[in-house]
């Protein structure tokens, strides 16, 4: 009896704790979503209103009149492309790090890590000039290139861990059987690390989708992402909180969807990359 009461108390405490934490975590976001549907008076009302007549003005204003829909599409193009490129370039390198010790590869590995450590400002101006000279300013390509740099470190680091988790025996068996290195890589190693690939992909997409500095500097009117469009709502004429809320709501949804779908893999991804590092 006593044990059962203990168990109930324990469970209750856990639920209370988790609910409180969940509330703190989600409240700001929920409030933003609510605000996106409120008129300006309701949004600023004191005491705050929970029940109100919803309007979609802000969404229309932001996405139709101000063309945020175009920004949304740009963000999508850039994030997806970045992820694809980062994976294509980084995964083979990660595999090489995992499977074979090259003389001096510690240095290379560390150098890759430092690219992530550098404050983005270091690279901002020179990259701008580089892209300008090459004629790539205001194109999706420029931003994709910039994002790929920062993502490469992540890809190499994470995927190296995943590849190391695969027992060497499986690969060696294949090699003995006469498979070439390349075939082994594509037909054995890669499929076994697919969970890791998914996880890495999610991280890449998130980083690129939410990135601000380079999207702003290298973009223009052709390649403006959603993240860049939002601060434009804070003007010297006034801050359009309703539209900010609308844009903020929309910008978070694709990420949330991606995440919810791949949640299981993501958790695994973080571990294995981390432990080996």
């Amino acid at each position, binding site marked *: 009896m006593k044990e059962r009461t203990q168990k109930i108390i324990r469970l209750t405490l856990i639920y209370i704790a988790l609910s409180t934490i969940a509330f703190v975590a989600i409240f700001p976001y929920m409030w933003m979503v609510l605000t996106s549907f409120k008129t300006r008076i309701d949004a600023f009302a004191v005491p705050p209103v929970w029940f109100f007549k919803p309007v979609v003005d802000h969404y229309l204003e932001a996405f139709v009149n101000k063309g945020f829909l175009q920004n949304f599409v740009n963000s999508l193009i850039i994030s997806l492309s970045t992820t694809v490129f980062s994976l294509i370039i980084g995964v083979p390198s990660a595999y090489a790090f995992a499977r074979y010790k090259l003389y001096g590869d510690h240095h290379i590995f560390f150098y890759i890590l430092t690219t992530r450590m550098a404050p983005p400002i270091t690279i901002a101006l020179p990259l701008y000039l580089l892209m*300008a000279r090459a004629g790539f300013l205001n194109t999706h390509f420029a931003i994709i290139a910039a994002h790929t740099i920062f993502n490469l470190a992540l890809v190499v680091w994470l995927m190296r861990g995943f590849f190391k988790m695969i027992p060497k025996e499986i690969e060696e068996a294949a090699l003995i059987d006469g498979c070439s290195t390349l075939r082994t890589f594509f037909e054995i190693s890669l499929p076994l690390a697919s969970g890791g690939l998914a996880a890495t992909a999610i991280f890449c997409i998130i980083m690129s989708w939410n990135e601000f500095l380079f999207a702003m500097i290298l973009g*223009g009117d052709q390649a403006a992402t959603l993240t860049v469009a939002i601060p434009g709502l804070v003007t010297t*004429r006034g801050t359009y909180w309703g539209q900010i809320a609308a844009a903020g709501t929309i910008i978070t949804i694709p990420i949330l969807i991606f995440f919810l779908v791949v949640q299981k893999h993501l958790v695994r991804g973080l571990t294995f990359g981390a432990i080996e590092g």
Partner: protein
Amino acid sequence: MKIVRKKKTISIGLMVLTMIAFLVGCFAPAEAVPPAVTEKTYEGITLRFVAEAVPPTEALIKLLPEFEKASGMKVIVEQYPFDHVVEKTMMDLAGKTRIYDVLSTPYQYLGQFAEMGYIVPIEKFMNDPKLRDLEIDYADYIEGMLKASAEWKGELYGFPSNSCIMFLWYRRDLLEDPVERGTFKENYGYYYSIPPTNWIEYKDVAEFFTRPEQELYGVALQGKRHDALTCEWMNYMWSFGGRVLDEEGKPVINSPENVEALEYFVSLLPFAPPGTTTYTWDEVTTAFQKGRVVMAIQWNDQAFGVEDPAKSEVAGKMNYGPVPVKKQPAAHFGAWTYFIPKLSKHPEAAYLFIQWATSKKVQMELARIGMVPARHSSYLDPEVRKIPFFYPATLAALEISNYRPRIPEWEEMNSKMMLAISQALAGEKTSEETLDWLQKEYLKILGK
């Protein structure tokens, strides 16, 4: 005989036609485009224009199709928030990447751009008969505005684009209320002017109306560490007789007048809402909208927000007047200017564009949606005259138009001033200490 008569008829006919065309060209509602320019002249040319993402820019974009049709060129507008417009513009100019053909930039960059050779004087375009709009009427520009925003070392570099000015906002209903006036007389011994005309009155009224239990405060200060802070404080500075640089361009920021102005500013803190150190112009407007504040030194273009009954609880209860005076009247002029980069790919087309954008017709349209026009004629427009804060208070303030230094080093000086004043407000330093520090910094910046 017949042939000669025919020829004569034709010539007379042609002359009449030309005269009519000329007259029509003169007096017809022109697209503010010179007769020499037709839709073929600039066909195929694309003008790239970078500007701040604000309603006046939006309005300008709406009016663009007429201009594009009349001249044949296409205009692409890139809009960014304040900070980032300047970043992108600077990168383009410094990196010589020739992306933008025409700019709209805060006017304090005038000195820097001119000295570094980034922009061109527009005199030659103004005098070019091919480009000159017949109706341009240069005398119609408000002189103070034009000088502040575009004149440097005797040369004109552009036209004012996005202008605004600061003055005094006050709650007419509260200040005029006889009960309040009576109680004030009892406590302070005199009747205040409506609105207060000097700083002593201003502070007394502020103190009188500060009633935290009623959620009411005398003033609101734009106290965040932000551009808004220096913009507001400079009104006090000028009013107290101080300035940033003397005639020779040497910094005098820690002059006794300035110290007095800063001490006064800090002394207003108890009469402002608790959140005032996080306020920029936006929050001051909101404070008024919610009826929390009685007076403030604020921008004129923000007044639309407070006069809109859909957004504001005090619509119709406000009025506007000049900044209180200690030694001289003051009004901080804030503006953006249209500039033409030296490396612009189409400088002439660029000139045509900015001429159009500041033409009488366009300025009138923009005035109606709340942009501060640069022309006297716009103020005479009956629609514009109806906007209470717009016409008298704005015009009066514009005649004063104090402008901040437009030297290249100003951005750094402005940034340090923000820090200095913020420290004074936070009580970390006294006004004298912080301005002494600022003076040392200014000497370093300008000395090197």
